[in-house]
């Protein structure tokens, strides 16, 4: 959360200007009157939830008036969106996926991750050292790991998005133009599905979809490897539907087998050390081939979700629709704040690139355009002076 008395007005001012000038960038959700909204405010813990708006105009008015730090909208549809959860009467929810760069374990991450003391806000430069954190200023033992994603991080997330889209359009047969990809506003992507077929599904059914996409729970039997009568024995019997499609097909391709390769598959299984060995190899393969999505986001049908077109207070960037994923550059396309000059105290040496402008700041105080100043402040790496 953003500290300091001087800092909040700066960020809030930039957010206000954005909502004032670019309210139209805030996307109207379908069936707006059936959605639950919520928002958080600068300098305040917690969230105001169970709100409802009858039109996007009403919502715009709220944005300009309250200037929230974060704005959320349910993916669920309710009969009574403003009632407490038990009385809302759930009508369905859009299917959503979340891909977060921080879940991808990319090797570049330590080189742009800054420990920021949760007690006093002191920031240290990135380091590879694994030693326990101790704040040089207040001796605090807890730090938040703040990351300034690099282009490799974004490319890593994009790769997952592409993989997800591949699964959705081939196996699940979705139309590409029913799949909406958004930059989350910080370090990942949200994928909203416009297909109404999935709206009625309950959390259990959604969790089954997550299992499918992330490659968890594939039985060896599904690709034709069955347990023999004794311990680690195995025999091959392909399932009735064959192994041409879906996960079966993916594994078959990987193992370079088809529905007639009984001997070859048996050989592979024996090489892996029998049924158990093959099974653990299979688990590894599916995990690698699956998409790294956050399971909780997809299965939670009562969540409120960052709204497209609104600003993310962890970065000051906007949650932005990616019309073309390949060319999308969040540091240009989602950086939508103004360029008024702001004086900041930068806590540690930082490097970043926003709106095509490279910043390499090693001095304590600097005059930065608002979009860059706000970005660093939101990250906890700078304070307004």
């Amino acid at each position, binding site marked *: 959360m953003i500290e300091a008395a001087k800092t909040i007005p700066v960020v809030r001012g930039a957010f206000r200007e954005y909502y004032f000038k670019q309210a139209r960038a805030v996307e109207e959700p379908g069936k707006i009157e059936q959605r639950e909204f919520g928002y958080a405010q600068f300098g305040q813990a917690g969230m105001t939830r169970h709100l409802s708006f009858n039109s996007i105009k009403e919502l715009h008015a709220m944005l300009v008036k309250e200037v929230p730090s974060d704005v959320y909208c349910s993916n669920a549809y309710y009969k009574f969106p403003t009632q407490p959860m038990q009385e809302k009467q759930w009508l369905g929810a859009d299917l959503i996926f979340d891909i977060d760069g921080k879940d991808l374990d990319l090797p570049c991450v330590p080189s742009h991750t800054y420990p920021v003391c949760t007690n006093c806000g002191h920031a240290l430069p990135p380091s590879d050292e694994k030693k326990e954190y101790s704040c040089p200023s207040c001796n605090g033992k807890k730090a938040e790991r703040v990351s300034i994603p690099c282009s490799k991080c974004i490319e890593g997330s994009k790769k997952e998005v592409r993989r997800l889209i591949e699964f959705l359009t081939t196996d699940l047969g979705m139309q590409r133009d029913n799949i909406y990809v958004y930059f989350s506003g910080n370090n990942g992507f949200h994928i909203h599905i416009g297909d109404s077929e999935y709206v009625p*599904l309950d959390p259990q059914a959604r969790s*089954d979809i997550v299992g499918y996409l992330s490659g968890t729970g594939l039985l060896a039997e599904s690709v034709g490897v069955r347990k023999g009568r004794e311990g680690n024995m195995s025999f091959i019997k392909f399932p009735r539907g064959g192994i041409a499609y*879906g*996960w079966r097909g993916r594994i078959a391709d990987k193992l370079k087998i088809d529905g007639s390769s009984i001997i070859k598959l048996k050989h592979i299984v024996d090489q892996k050390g029998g049924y158990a060995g093959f099974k653990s190899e299979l688990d590894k393969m599916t995990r690698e081939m699956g998409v790294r999505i956050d399971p909780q986001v997809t299965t939670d049908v009562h969540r409120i979700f960052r709204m497209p077109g609104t600003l993310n207070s962890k970065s000051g960037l906007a949650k932005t629709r990616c019309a073309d994923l390949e060319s999308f550059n969040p540091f240009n396309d989602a950086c939508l704040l103004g360029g008024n000059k702001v004086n900041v105290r930068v806590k540690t040496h930082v490097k970043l690139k926003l709106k095509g402008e490279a910043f390499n700041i090693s001095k304590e105080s600097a005059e930065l355009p608002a979009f860059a100043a706000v970005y660093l402040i939101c990250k906890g790496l700078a304070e307004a002076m």
Partner: protein
Amino acid sequence: MPVQLMTSNLSSIRMGTGDLAKYPFLNEAGEYLRESGFGWEELDRPDMKDIIDRAAERIEVGVGGNIYDKLEKYEIEILTFIVSLIMVKSIGMEPVLKKYALSEARRAEEFLTQDLKQQSEMQKHSLFAKIFEDLFKLKIEVAEDGRLFKVRVADYLARSSHFHEQEWKLINRLVQGGHVYLDADETVRLVRNELSVLIYEKVKAMTLPTLPQAIKVKAEELRAKLAPRYEYRTSAVTEYPPCVKHAIEVMSKGENLPHSARVMLATYMLAVGKPVDEIVMMFQNAPDFNEKITRYQVEHLAGMKGSRTKYSVPSCEKLRNENLCFATEECNGIINPVQFGRKRK
């Protein structure tokens, strides 16, 4: 007129009368009766006695957990089915209705599976279009190879995600282009629960006119016979805790219940003083039900067999860890399911 109970969307596909005999819950069956000008009063005719006896037998067999497997001419089957529904309704006992509905579903399931394996593609198609679309709003297509069937992924998930077996997980299915490919057995398995719910609801929604004497007498007879098994449900506990309710629900659908859930159910029932006989019967819908084994196990838990220790009901915490807890607000402040409903302020 009982035939008016059989309404749902009419479809243009005509069924053969042989199909109607096997699937008397289809609209066509009702239509057939209507067209033949059949009337209520006729059930009092002496030659209808056979139908009424058959209906009673059908109910008894079904409620006993078995499948009534006689298959007669369609006129007889349709009438028998409708008279069965009327009798079950007038018997008015919830467990009887539930078991009866389940057994009708199982009966239809068997016929369906056979038919889907044997019939030609054209026949398959019309049978499916009829039963799955009209009854379950489930679109099914015959796959390109003429052997497998295709359902939409979302339709599949809406049903399969409540099955417990790993092979029903989507990842273990043949999935392509938004469809899940299933064989005949699997396709039918997918809707079995719905069929029993459908029959259950059909009976629930019926309003009975004055019954012909012949049916009344037979229904009373049957009721007297079944009542001792089901009527004394009044123990001190007015409502079961959610975890127990859930287990009973899973059980009544004929689905597999994990061992730990069975132990919970049995120990709970013992704790609230349900007789062993009745507890054993609670498990009779389990796919692997064997009365002798179940009885032994329940008696063991009751401390009547083996180690002679009486097992207590697992704590809420233990159940929570085993994903068997389905706590509601009413569970607040209790640590063991037996306390449920007893600690009211």
